[in-house]
């Protein structure tokens, strides 16, 4: 079982390394690398316009929907062992049980995960990642960063993405050619998502006055919600500003998004 210990060692090393860069969770957000991030963001948008967007439309347009869905299902199923490792590291037994059940039935009855019979019974996927594990262990999200190709992230989640590349037990169990099968499926799944989000992506990000600022807001808010935070609103009826006492207190730091013009 030494193969199972390797990911754990990577995990611990990464967690120790992270504590050096992560800060406590703030109610607002921290973007000290903004100038650099904007450069990467522009680069990503160029790549999206030139390659990813057209490829996604071509992919979505050429494949019949059931085939596309099958490929995405397969990719999600192949990621389940990694989800389960993270569920266990988080001591989240509920999600671990759901994901193990999905893995067992979707891999067999669902023919290697191409179909999602468990989803049809209401047992939906509960994806996880090592960024979430670090969150559960108490790591703050750190600063906002934009990764080349991968897009918006935080320091904590970037470490998570790196570690997740090693935490999928499948890659230790399968021989060398088979372990790469999920890679094209993952790319296909990502293209499907990009294609499905096409018009909305344009409306919310590309058409925005400042696409960078809007993408940052959307990423951080939805990621925090994903990690168990509450959806934050503001109170537009409050006198003298929109600061919302119902937003998670999280250290009580001022939130630049609450009404920036309130005095």
């Amino acid at each position, binding site marked *: 079982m030494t193969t199972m210990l390797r990911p754990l060692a990577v995990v611990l090393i990464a967690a120790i390394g992270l504590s050096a860069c992560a800060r406590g969770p703030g109610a607002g957000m921290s973007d000290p690398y903004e100038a650099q991030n904007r450069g990467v963001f522009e680069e990503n948008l160029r790549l999206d316009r030139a390659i990813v967007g057209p490829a996604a439309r071509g992919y979505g347009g050429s494949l019949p929907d059931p085939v596309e869905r099958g490929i995405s299902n397969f990719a999600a199923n192949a990621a389940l062992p990694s989800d389960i490792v993270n569920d266990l590291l988080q001591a989240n037994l509920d999600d671990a049980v759901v994901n193990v059940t999905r893995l067992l039935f979707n891999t067999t009855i669902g023919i290697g995960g191409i179909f999602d019979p468990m989803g049809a019974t209401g047992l939906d996927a509960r994806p996880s990642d090592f960024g979430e594990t670090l969150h559960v262990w108490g790591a703050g999200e750190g600063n906002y960063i934009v990764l080349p190709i991968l897009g918006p992230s935080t320091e904590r989640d970037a470490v998570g993405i790196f570690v997740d590349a090693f935490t999928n037990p499948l890659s230790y169990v399968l021989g060398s050619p088979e372990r790469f099968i999920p890679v094209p499926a993952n790319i296909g799944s990502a293209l499907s998502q990009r294609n499905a989000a096409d018009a909305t992506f344009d409306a919310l990000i590309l058409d925005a*006055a400042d696409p960078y600022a809007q993408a940052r807001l*959307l990423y951080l808010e939805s990621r925090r919600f994903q990690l168990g935070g509450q*959806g*934050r609103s503001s109170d537009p009826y409050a006198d003298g500003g929109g600061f919302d006492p119902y937003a998670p207190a999280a250290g009580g730091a001022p939130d630049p998004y609450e009404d920036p013009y309130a005095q």
Partner: protein
Amino acid sequence: MRNSPLTRRLFLATSSAAAVMVARPALAMSEAEATQLVQQAIAELQAIIDSGQSERQMLGRFKAYFERFADVPVIAQFALGRGVNASAAERRAFEDAFAGYISRKYGRRFREFIGAQIDIAGAAQLRENQYEVRSTVRLRGQAPFELAFRVSDQSGRGRMFDLIIEGVSLLRVEGQEVRDLLIRYGDDVGRVAQHLNQAG
């Protein structure tokens, strides 16, 4: 680009940016009334979507729906911010432009809502006259997602003032947008309004 939290389902619900509410006297609303209003708003939204009309016709209906059920003046003034130097006339012009912009921007997304099943999961009181009504949205072939409606009758009758889709508040999204426009146009509210008249 990896935009996992920005996936389609996050935004699907945006078409219901308009939502909520029948005219009522200014007595503080109850939790049951808040829930009932959200239910009615959902039913009316689905009636528009399922009407089979052209996009142009639906956008017209959607604008009226939005102006009736969402607390547009309060949302618009919040997005603009209180510290901005603008005359009353400029603020009114901004409000009009904002209402049109919002209904076009989110009205165009209504198609993604066809066949959606929205189940109310519960309601909670936020403060004396503010409620959050939570729901789960199911779309064909997709994992369900959470949509919360925030409603209040502080402007005289019950209306919606925010929609929160998987943690993303549309009030804050539009607050960010207007803030960025003010930066671009050097705090000239008239030019921001002009921009919004063309946008969406």
